[in-house]
């Protein structure tokens, strides 16, 4: 087991080495990183900043399909022949000439609208690709922030409950039971309803969703972290730390937490995926981001109406973006778990 003298890779170094050997994991990581770059670029205004511009004809199809054929025969036939002359009976007839002159002076400059766009356009003619990129920014930001907040909350409470036990542990268990006893979607609605009244406290939109999701999804992490702390608190290395006089907080955060960090990290990445999906559902139900923002969820909500008309591209774009990101993130999570699992470390 002894390696040649010199610095040896720590636990993290070894995990990174194992992760690098995992081809699927590295591909997934590359995809995730590409999304992160995209999100950052969109956030800084470099990419898809003008997603609100109506650059295409309404419901322009994707470029691959080619422009839509002009509608040959509308259902209601237009009137044939010259328009009827109403001069004799129209009281406003004397002003026709004046209006024509005014109309000559005005020029409505209408930008040429594209017949097709790379991924098509929505009903207002906005570029679906730009919308999907902006939607990625909102959805991924919400997902990551909500997962981070939920992990922080769950880890802290779980660590306290598992380490101290006793009254504190009982109290936290009680809180956990209350939260898990209520059906999840109902709980989310409740928080959404309460928070929507608290506009002064919290701007509506991204932040309120982050808070809602964090408050409703910490329970799973709490349970796992508590179990890990229960297990580790009586381990010899923690007892040894107590014997040398390490304080309770040092034992919790310096000794045990790094040893259960693989659980926390994997939970974090699982919750990122879950939060993105929840955000999509919330936005779809109208409880999500504000109307002037776009997320994958609002795109899906719009797509519902378009689909009836046969305009499937907005749905496809949002679904594809989400599927690629969520799949890549999940695969990366799997690889991360394998790389961090101390059971695979040979000696434990």
């Amino acid at each position, binding site marked *: 087991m002894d390696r040649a003298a010199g*610095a040896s890779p*720590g636990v993290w170094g070894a995990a990174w080495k194992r992760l690098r050997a995992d081809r699927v994991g590295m591909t997934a990581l590359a995809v995730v990183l590409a999304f992160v770059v995209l999100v950052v670029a969109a956030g800084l205004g470099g990419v898809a900043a003008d997603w609100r511009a109506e650059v295409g004809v309404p419901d322009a199809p994707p470029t691959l399909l080619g422009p839509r054929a002009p509608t040959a025969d509308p259902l209601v036939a237009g009137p044939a022949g010259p328009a009827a002359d109403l001069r004799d009976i129209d009281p406003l007839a004397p002003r026709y000439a004046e209006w024509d002159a005014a109309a000559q002076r005005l020029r409505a400059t209408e930008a040429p609208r594209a017949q097709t766009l790379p991924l098509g356009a929505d009903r207002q003619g906005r570029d679906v690709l730009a919308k999907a990129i902006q939607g990625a920014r909102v959805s991924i930001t919400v997902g990551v922030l909500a997962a981070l907040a939920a992990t922080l909350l769950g880890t802290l409470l779980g660590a306290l409950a598992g380490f101290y036990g006793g009254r504190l542990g009982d109290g936290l268990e009680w809180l956990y039971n209350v939260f898990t006893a209520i059906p999840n979607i109902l709980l989310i609605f409740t928080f959404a309803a309460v928070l929507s009244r608290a506009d002064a406290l919290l701007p509506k939109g991204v932040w309120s969703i982050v808070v809602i999701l964090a408050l409703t999804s910490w329970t799973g992490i709490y349970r796992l972290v508590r179990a890990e702390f229960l297990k580790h608190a009586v381990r010899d290395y923690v*007892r040894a*730390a107590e*014997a040398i*006089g390490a304080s309770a907080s040092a034992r919790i955060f310096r*000794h045990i937490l790094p040893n259960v960090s693989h659980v926390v990290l994997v939970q974090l990445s699982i919750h990122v995926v879950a939060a993105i999906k929840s955000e999509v559902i919330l936005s779809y139900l109208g409880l999500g981001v504000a109307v002037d923002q776009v997320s994958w969820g609002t795109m899906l909500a719009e797509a519902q109406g378009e689909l009836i008309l046969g305009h499937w591209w907005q749905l496809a774009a949002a679904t594809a973006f989400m599927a690629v990101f969520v799949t890549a993130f999940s695969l990366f999570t799997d690889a991360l778990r394998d790389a961090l699992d101390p059971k695979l470390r040979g*000696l434990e």
Partner: protein
Amino acid sequence: MSRTETTMDEPLLRIADLRVSFRLGREGGQMQRAQAVGRVVDGRAVGVSFDVPAHRTVALVGESGSGKSVTAMSVLNLLPDNAEREGTIRFQGRDLLALAPRELRALRGKDIACVFQDPMSSLNPVFTIGAQLCEPLRRHLGLTRRQALARAEALLAEVGLPEPKRRLRAYPHQLSGGQQQRVMIAMALACEPRLLIADEPTTALDVTVQRQILELLATLKQRHRMGLLFISHDLGVVGEIADQVVVMRQGTVREQGPVAQIFSAPRDAYTRALLACRPRLDACPARLPTIDDLMAAEAAQAAGGAPADTAAATPPPKDPDAPVVLEVRELSKAFWLRRGVFGRRLFQAVRGASFQLRRGHTLGVVGESGSGKTTMGLALLRLHDPHGGPTGGQVLFDGQDLLQLPRGALLPVRRRIQVVFQNPYASLNPRFSIGQTLTEPMAIHGLGGDDAGRRARAEALLARVGLDADVMRRYPHEFSGGQRQRIAIARCLTLQPEVLVLDEAVSALDVSVQAQVLNLLKDLQDELGLAYVFISHDLAVVRFLSDEVLVMKDGAVVEQAGAEQILRAPQQDYTRRLLGAVPRGWVPAAG
């Protein structure tokens, strides 16, 4: 190869030139392998060869990593999927390496049965003993349910379980460790195997229970006329049960022969060293010889040098009037046990233990598992969860009662009483480098000046326990058990303690490593005047280190006297039983 069997036919089991390696995965396009059994010597692969004759007991002895378990598990191919076996294993004339998985499965349990080290993890906790016993009977022998139950009852009676009929309905957790191992043996015997492979079957058990199981195995071997392949790290156990002994080290056979020859006239230097480095009940040298020392001495002798001086000097007498550093009066510790939904009751784990510990002295604490010795050790340091249950009595350290000190005032005392735990794999934080592990205690107590000073001191202590300074940057998983235990000892020494509680500190180590660590502990005591509370189930080890011995049973101290006195003239029945159960190895003639 030595042949002592009179039969000229093929023996029951013949292992010839067996080599086992484990595939570790590809690196740079080349399959990497770890050789577990067999070694390349002078460019030639040498495997393991030995016979197990019918009705005989062959013992495989070696330290951890010697390949003894891998060799035994190769017989039935109970190895992980990445194992590759070469050579021949012939059982009753059939080559087991060439058998199809289905044929091998038919042999398992029926002709060759196994008993493993840990009965608690070998029995399925959700099935009753009866269900688990009946399964092989119905599968291999085709018995009906009723017949199988009757046979299972008879088997339990045979392995000496009282009330076998009631036990059939019991779940594994309702039985003690020794009873579980008896059930495992009954399961192994169920189909009347020709060969029984017992892999460290008594290692997880107390000495008294170990003795019963050894006697049971010997009787059953006689009665069923089985061959027995017995794997153990303990030469004392092997000497009592084996007819033939095979000594293994690093995947090769060092020596094999009849038990009398191995114990009375060992030919191999390693065997001799292995025999010499065990602490014994009947002799107490000042230092234990270690395998490295002995083998180096033999090599020097073979090269024509003068034999090194390994003669044991008499231990320096200890000052009987040394100041008392720790006095314990009527120490008791109880735990709350849940009962029903809301009820709870107290379980008394330690009751009324009293002793005095003088500077530079060692108090040995012996007892079987569950006797409360570890609980007492942890109570001395106040390492129990305060919600767990009440602690009574007094622990006087320097005139202060540790049990009455408020938590905040405990820190200065923590520096002066330290503890070393049993399992060196669990007592070091795996995410801390050795440097962090060693400097943390000094930083907490503000010792050693600045960081540089602490590092210098940590390096000096590492040198003191026999490790290089460059291990500071490494992590615990890179070290062997013995090295980790040295690091744990060094961590305690950083605080310059006065009392060290050693909770089974050498029990998890191989004999050779155990001898090194015991010598280290003795040297440190002489040098620094440390007082030890040495908790162990191993009487021989306690005898080597202790001045006074405390014998505990069911939480109470049953006997307390000087080490010599307890060994020579034990007053209590229980102590006598404990001493009688210690394996003594091979005893000529009388044994």
